[in-house]
Structures are given as structure tokens and as C-alpha cells.
């Protein structure tokens, strides 16, 4: 029989076949495989992250449970009172020392000016001073040798005393000569008008400047005492301080009494704190033992070799579990509630009385602000003292810590304290706030710059400018973030602080700034990093606005600027928003710069200054992960807390990217 005649459309058989696949399907599966690999890897990352991170909550819950069982919670109620008391006392102390120092402000300013000026003159006259010093030391050496040889009875033959004495005379003359030159040189240098521009907090009158100058000129390098004028200044300061101390004797007594009132509370806390810590240590040790025993028992279960199993069982048997007698241990706290009540009642009486005695207002602004702060803190302290006792009475060490609040404790916690000998707190707020503050600053700076530049390059610039600006902006992306961090520490931080100290900028909230490394500094650097991203994407979005829109607008007699503002930018708006969101994603995920430049203070920034909060140091979610991951034990609660932070960060980035894609998609439909 003949084979059936193949029709012309029969599928040709590929000569190369592996596993029944021809070349085309192999390529198809290869590409498909690549695509699925990406999905698999992403899911693996998500699962791993979630697994590690979510285990944080049970551990955290156990930790808080232990915190309560061991009585640490009880002690922290007391500590809160003590802390509040010390805070109030601190304001009072600052008010007092503000008054004392203010009494001799002028003289202290003069001293500062004197020191600054002599330092400058030393730099100016270093050569002359060096010559003087050399001669002076030679002279001293020679005199010493002469004394030496004179004391030795017969004297060394080789040493010619007469010649040496002549030399001494010559050296003395030279010394005097050099002293004169040095003084002349100093006098000359002082004639420079630049010498009058000092950093001193006060401005000097002509006489004051002359007096100081005189003191500097006459103080030679070999002088043993300060110039008489300076000595007098120091004496005046001492006198004035003493006078002020006498004047503010009352305030001082009140301050001392205020501090003393808190002492019984501290004395009460001391032993309780030690007790709670010991209980906690015992509990932790017992827990470790229990885990060890469990591990051994599990090992015995899985061991195939009966000998090994017996070995494991014997080891497990040998571990004696200690049941921590919490009821007994916590009795001390219940016993002390009455003592606490007595202490705080006395304290409240004392403080109330003292509070009414303290002067209403101070002489200086420092004293005034601190006194008013003291007055704000005092009622808070009194309420706290009044309420804590009820809190203590209601407290039971064996009430189980509810699970949901332990989860919330992470998201609303204001403290991130790790590796502490007391208790580790994992509060997410300070880190989250830091990240958000920095990102906000960065965005506020990035958006106008990058969108503005994109509009200029895309709509206004000629091709020559485009060819210059686009590569330059995109080149910024090539700067490694660690290098930018260096720049932030070395240049930007210092410059910002100097600028913030300018007098005419004092109205800016937060100025002058205390810290070089802070939110503002990090935000500016991150803005710099995000500008290329946002610029490039926004420029693309503008480019995607059809040219026919622009032409239509111009043909209707609209100007270039009208066309840009009314047609091009609205047309590209969703693309621009997506660009900004992606820039935000880059900002919030950035690590190196914030680790170096944000200041690294893990506490909730103080919002009482309003916008001034941007001059405070913070820590961020990314920064803390980078900083602490290296030093944690795998599987510990701290390790898991860092993973949880990572997961939160991941969710934020995911959300941002998702919204950006959504917006772009919507935009494409509109066209």
C-alpha cells in the first residue's frame, strides 16, 4: 500500500528534537521558565519574610508577659514618677543656673573674646613665638647647667663657667630683643580691622577691646600668670557669681528641697528594681532550661539508635526544671504599695508647697522659659503621683497580658530599646516617624525641582540644552549613596548648621540647629538622589503628550507657557504623579544615606516646635535594619522585630508601586 499523499499544509517535522520538544517549543518553554522563575523567587521572598516577621508577635507577647510576671511593669510605674520628678527638677535647675551665669554674662563674653583673639594672634605670630621659645629654652638649659656645675664642688674641668655666663648674658639680651619683636608683631597684627570681627556673643566697646589687646600683647609665652586684666576679669566673675548665688539663695534652697523630696521615692525604687531584675533573670534562665529539655526530648523521639535515645533521655532527665515562684516573688511589690502611698503623699505635699514658693518669673529669658516649663510639668507630676497608687493597687502580676494589645504595642510603641539589662521594648513609631519625616522633606524638595526641570527640558529647552541637561541629571544617579553620605556629613551638615546660625534666619523654626546630622540634612540628600528618577519619568510622561495637542493649542493663539500649563502638564499629570510615587518609593527604601546622615537617635522626635522638628536627629526603619542585623542572634525576638520592620517597609514599597502602576494604566486608557 502506498503511503497517503501528504497534503501541502502538513506540519514539517523539526530535525532537532530533545525530549519530544522541537526548537520552537523549547524556546517557548525557556522564556516561560524565565518568567515563572521571577514569580517563584518573589513568592519565596514573601513567604520567608512573612514567616520570620510574623513570629515576632508571639515572642513579643511572651516578652511582655514576662515583663509583667517579673514585676518590671510595677517598677516602671514608679520609675515614670521618678523620671517626671527629675524632669521638673531639671527645669528648675536650668532656671537657677541661667540666673547665676547671666550675672556675669558680659565678663564671660569678654573672656571668650580674649581667648579667641589670643588664639588668632598665636596663629599670626607663630614664627616669632617659635624663635622666642627656642631662645628661652636655650637660656633655661644653660642656667640649669651652670647651677649644676656650681653645686658640684670642684666642678667639671671641661665646663667653662665664665664662658657660659657670658653666653647667658648674650641669650638674655637676645631674648629681650625677640620679646620686643613678638610684641611689635602682635601690635601690628591687631591693627587689622578683621581682628575685631569676633564670634563672641557680645560686641566689645573700644576700651574693652584695647584692654584685651593690651593683655594679649603683654602676655609673653614665658609668662606664668594671666595678665592682670584677665585675672581681674576672673575675679569679677567669681564675685558676681557669689553675689548672684546670695541673691538667688531662695531659689537654690527650693531647688535642693525639690530634689530632696524625690529621694525617698528613689530609695523605695532601688531595691524593688533589683528584685524585679533578679526575678526576670531567673525566669529567663528557667525558660532557657525548659527549652533545652524540650530539645533533648525531641531529639530522643527522633533518634533511631536506642543507645543515643537513652543518652538523650538521661540528659533530659538530668535537667531539673525550676518553677519560678512568681506569687512568692511578687509579694514584695504588694507589700510596698502602702509604703509607696506614704512616700508619694508626702512628696505631693512637699512639692505643692514648694511649687507655690518658687518665684513667678526670672530675670533672664533662659530662666523665664525654664520656669514656665517647670510650671507646666509640675501639675502633671502631681497628677501622676496621685494616680499611680490606684494603678498599683489594680496591678496583678498574674493577669495575662492580652494578645491584641501586645500587637498594638509594636505599632504604637514609642520606645525602641534593645540589649537592655532591664527590658527590651520594640516600638515602631520612632522609626516610622523618622522615615516619614525624611521622606516628606525629600519629596517637598524633589517635586518642584525635578518636575520643573523636566518641563523645561521637554518643552522649553533647545536640543543643545537638552543634550547637556539630561545626561547631567541622569549622571547624579551614578553617585554611590555612601559617597553622598560622606558629602552630607562633611559638607552639607556643617554648611547647614552655619547657615542656621545666621542671625537674620533665626525666625526659621528649628534654627539655629543643635545637630549637624538631622532630618533636614538627610532629606536634602535623598531629594538629590530622587531627582534623577522623578525627572526622567516625568520627562517621559511629558514626552508622551501627543504633539497634536501642543499644535492645536498653539494654533488657537495660546502662548508657549499657556500651552504648557493648560495642555501639556494636565495631559501628563498622571504620569508625573506616578513618577513622584516611584521617587517616593526610592526615598523611603534608601538606607546608606539615612544611616550616615539622619543622626541615629532612636526616640520619637519632639513635635512641640512644629516644623522645627526637621532639625532633630532621627533613626529610620531602613537604617535600624542595616545597623542592628549584624549583631542579633538568629531567631531571637530582636531578629524577628527587624524582619517585621522589613516587612512593613516591603508593604509600603509594594503599595507605592502598585498605586503608581494603577495611575499610569488609567492614564493610558484616557489616550
Amino acid at each position, binding site marked *: 500500500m502506498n503511503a497517503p499523499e501528504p497534503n501541502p499544509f502538513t506540519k514539517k517535522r523539526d530535525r532537532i528534537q530533545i525530549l519530544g520538544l522541537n526548537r520552537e517549543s523549547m524556546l517557548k518553554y525557556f522564556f516561560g521558565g524565565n518568567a515563572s522563575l521571577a514569580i517563584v523567587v518573589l513568592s519565596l521572598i514573601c513567604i520567608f519574610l512573612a514567616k520570620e516577621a510574623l513570629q515576632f508577635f508571639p515572642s513579643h507577647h511572651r516578652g511582655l508577659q514576662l515583663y509583667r510576671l517579673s514585676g518590671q511593669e510595677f517598677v516602671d510605674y514608679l520609675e515614670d514618677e521618678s523620671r517626671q520628678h527629675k524632669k521638673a527638677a531639671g527645669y528648675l535647675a536650668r532656671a537657677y543656673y541661667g540666673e547665676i551665669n547671666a550675672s556675669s554674662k558680659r565678663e564671660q563674653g569678654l573672656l571668650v573674646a580674649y581667648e579667641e583673639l589670643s588664639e588668632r594672634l598665636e596663629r599670626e605670630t607663630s614664627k616669632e613665638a617659635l624663635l622666642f621659645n627656642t631662645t628661652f629654652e636655650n637660656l633655661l638649659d644653660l642656667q640649669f647647667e651652670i647651677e649644676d656645675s656650681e653645686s658640684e664642688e670642684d666642678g667639671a674641668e671641661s665646663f667653662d663657667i665664665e664662658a657660659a655666663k657670658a653666653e647667658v648674658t648674650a641669650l638674655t639680651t637676645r631674648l629681650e630683643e625677640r620679646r620686643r619683636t613678638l610684641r611689635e608683631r602682635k601690635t601690628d597684627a591687631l591693627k587689622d580691622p578683621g581682628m575685631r570681627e569676633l564670634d563672641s556673643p557680645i560686641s566689645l566697646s573700644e576700651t574693652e577691646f584695647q584692654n584685651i589687646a593690651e593683655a594679649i600683647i603683654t602676655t609673653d609665652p614665658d609668662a606664668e600668670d594671666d595678665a592682670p586684666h584677665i585675672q581681674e576679669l576672673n575675679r569679677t566673675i567669681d564675685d558676681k557669681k557669689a553675689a548672684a548665688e546670695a541673691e538667688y539663695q531662695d531659689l537654690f534652697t527650693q531647688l535642693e528641697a525639690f530634689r530632696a523630696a524625690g529621694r525617698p521615692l528613689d530609695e523605695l525604687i532601688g531595691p524593688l528594681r533589683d528584685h524585679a531584675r533578679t526575678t526576670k533573670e531567673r525566669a529567663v534562665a528557667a525558660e532557657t532550661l525548659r527549652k533545652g529539655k524540650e530539645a533533648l526530648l525531641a531529639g530522643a523521639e527522633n533518634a533511631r539508635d536506642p543507645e543515643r535515645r537513652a543518652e538523650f533521655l538521661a540528659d533530659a532527665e538530668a535537667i531539673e526544671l525550676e518553677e519560678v515562684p512568681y506569687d512568692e516573688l511578687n509579694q514584695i511589690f504588694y507589700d510596698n504599695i502602702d509604703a509607696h502611698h506614704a512616700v508619694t503623699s508626702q512628696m505631693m505635699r512637699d512639692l505643692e508647697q514648694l511649687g507655690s514658693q518658687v518665684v513667678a518669673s526670672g530675670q533672664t529669658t533662659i530662666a523665664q522659659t525654664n520656669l514656665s516649663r517647670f510650671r507646666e510639668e509640675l501639675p502633671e507630676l502631681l497628677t501622676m503621683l496621685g494616680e499611680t497608687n490606684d494603678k498599683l493597687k489594680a496591678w496583678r502580676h498574674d493577669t495575662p497580658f492580652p494578645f491584641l494589645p501586645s500587637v498594638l504595642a509594636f505599632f504604637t510603641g514609642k520606645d525602641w530599646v534593645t540589649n537592655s539589662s532591664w527590658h527590651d521594648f520594640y516600638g515602631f513609631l520612632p522609626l516610622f516617624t523618622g522615615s516619614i519625616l525624611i521622606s516628606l522633606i525629600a519629596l517637598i524638595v524633589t517635586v518642584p525641582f525635578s518636575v520643573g526641570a523636566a518641563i523645561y527640558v521637554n518643552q522649553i529647552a533647545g536640543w543643545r540644552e537638552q543634550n547637556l541637561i539630561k545626561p547631567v541629571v541622569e549622571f547624579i544617579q551614578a553617585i554611590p549613596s555612601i559617597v553622598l553620605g560622606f558629602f552630607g556629613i562633611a559638607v552639607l551638615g556643617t554648611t547647614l548648621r552655619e547657615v542656621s546660625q545666621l542671625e537674620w534666619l533665626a525666625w526659621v523654626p528649628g534654627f539655629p540647629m543643635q545637630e549637624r546630622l538631622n532630618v533636614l540634612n538627610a532629606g536634602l540628600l535623598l531629594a538629590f538622589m530622587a531627582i534623577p528618577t522623578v525627572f526622567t519619568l516625568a520627562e517621559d510622561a511629558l514626552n508622551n503628550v501627543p504633539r497634536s495637542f501642543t499644535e492645536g493649542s498653539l494654533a*488657537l*493663539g495660546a502662548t508657549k507657557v499657556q500651552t504648557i500649563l493648560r495642555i501639556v502638564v494636565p495631559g501628563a499629570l498622571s504620569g508625573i504623579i506616578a513618577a513622584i510615587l516611584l521617587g517616593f518609593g526610592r526615598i523611603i527604601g534608601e538606607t546608606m544615606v539615612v544611616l550616615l546622615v539622619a543622626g541615629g537617635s532612636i526616640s520619637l522626635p519632639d513635635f512641640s516646635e512644629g516644623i522645627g522638628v526637621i532639625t532633630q536627629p532621627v533613626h529610620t526603619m531602613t537604617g535600624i535594619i542595616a545597623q542592628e542585623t549584624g549583631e542579633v542572634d538568629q531567631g531571637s525576638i530582636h531578629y524577628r522585630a527587624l524582619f517585621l520592620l522589613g516587612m512593613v517597609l516591603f508593604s509600603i514599597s509594594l503599595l507605592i508601586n502598585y498605586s503608581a502602576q494603577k495611575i499610569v494604566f488609567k492614564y493610558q486608557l484616557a489616550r
Partner: protein
Amino acid sequence: MLLENPNSSLMETPSLEEDAVHTSPSDSGESAPIIDIEGVDFHYGKSKALSDITLAIPEKQVTAFIGPSGCGKSTLLRCLNRMNDLIEGAQISKGVIRILGTDIYDPTVDPIELRKHVGMVFQKSNPFPKTIYDNVAYGLRVGGLTDKHGLDEIVERSLRSAALWDETKDRLKDNAMGLSGGQQQRLCIARAIAVQPKIILMDEPCSALDPIATMRIEKLISELKSDYTIVIVTHNMQQASRVSDRTALFYLGELVEEGTTEQIFQNPDKKETEDYISGRFG
């Protein structure tokens, strides 16, 4: 008409307006040319696109530019409202174009003001991604008119003139992108006439439309010519013969022949014209 133009107060070139008054056509006889093109050469960078074009376009008539692709008819059209300014390296190297007696390439002429008098409708309809109302009002608003009442009135009048009012009066606040292709093109015409130009340039306005939509636009063009001077570029010879009063044929950047449509189509002077009209080349 110019004097009623809400934008005329913004004119930076009073000469244009004055000339408009002086050179306005007399009531009798052949109207004076509103556009006067004299010996124009045009370059894109180094390549020459137009050479020595001389052409006069009369007022309130429809003039059609025809010719094969790349013959320079669109280029010449875009010279008339200086849209070619947007292309880097494009310039008129010789000759003068006068509109209402003013040399529009004179340095004192502001192209923005010029375009308010010389409107344009493009090959592909290009309504802005805004509402229908905002599209029509756009030219007025950029010209500085903000009075709501005045805007309403002009938008309605323009849509009526563009024969679009009945279809859109209930959906003025809808996005213009939702209109059909023919409606979009009529919207673009309404948008152009809203600023009350003297001249409307149309660059192959029907090339992307179906025959029915094309017919409506052609009807609109013949209605509009009582108020506006229309210059239309077209590939479609039948269209040129249907809508235009005068026709100019271009080939390889040169003006081959121009005259009344009747004469060009029925009794052309030049052999090339006859060949092109009868479809022997092009």
C-alpha cells in the same frame, strides 16, 4: 468681524488691524486678496521644500491646495500661520507673505497674535482631553476672556456654526474624547472659529473620516465661506472640485497652476495639470 474679536485688544501689532480696515474688500467686483504670497522659498534645514511660490488668495472664498504627497502644499499652509516656527531649522529664505497687507514674518509680528486671526484645523482631529465646552472655550480663555456668560454665548454660536450644537448641547460637560471621529473634527472646527479668525486653514481635514462624515464637513465648509476665508489642503480631487472656488496645484515644491476650480478642472492651461487631474500621475 475683526473689531468684534474679543482678543483684538491684546494685539501687539496694531498695523495688522489697521491694515485690515484699509484693505477690507470693496463691495463691488473682484475682492482684493487677503493672503498675498510673493516669490516664497522655504527650507527645512538645507533641503528646499518650496521654491518661488507666488499666489494670491481672495477673501471669503475656499481655496484648495492639491498635489501629490511631498509637493509642499502642507508646508505652504503651515507658513500662513507660522506653525513652521516650531520646527527647528525651518525658515522662509526668500519672498514675502502678506496677510491683510502685513508681512507676517516681520519681526514686529507676534505669531501668537497672528494665529488668533489665522485658525487651523489639522489632518488628524486633535481635541484636547477636556470637556466639549472647555475645548471650544480654550482659545477664548487663553485670550483672556473669563466672563462666563460671554463664554457660554460664543461656545453655543461656534458649535452651531460647526453644525455640532444639536448633537452636543446635552453633553457639553462630557469628555471630547468620547465623540466620534467626524464629530471630533467638527469640534476642532468649532474650536477654531470660536476665536473668530479671518482665515481658517484646513490640513486634509477629512482624510481620516468616512464618506458620510466627510460629506458633513464639506457641507460645513461651504456654509462657513460666507464668513471666513478658507484654505484647504486635500488629496482628494473630487473634494477639491466640490468645495473650492479656486484651486492651486503644487508639484515638487513648485506652484504648477492656479485659477478658479472650474477652469483648473475643465480647461487647464498646463499639460501637467491635466495629467494630474485625470489621474495619470500623482
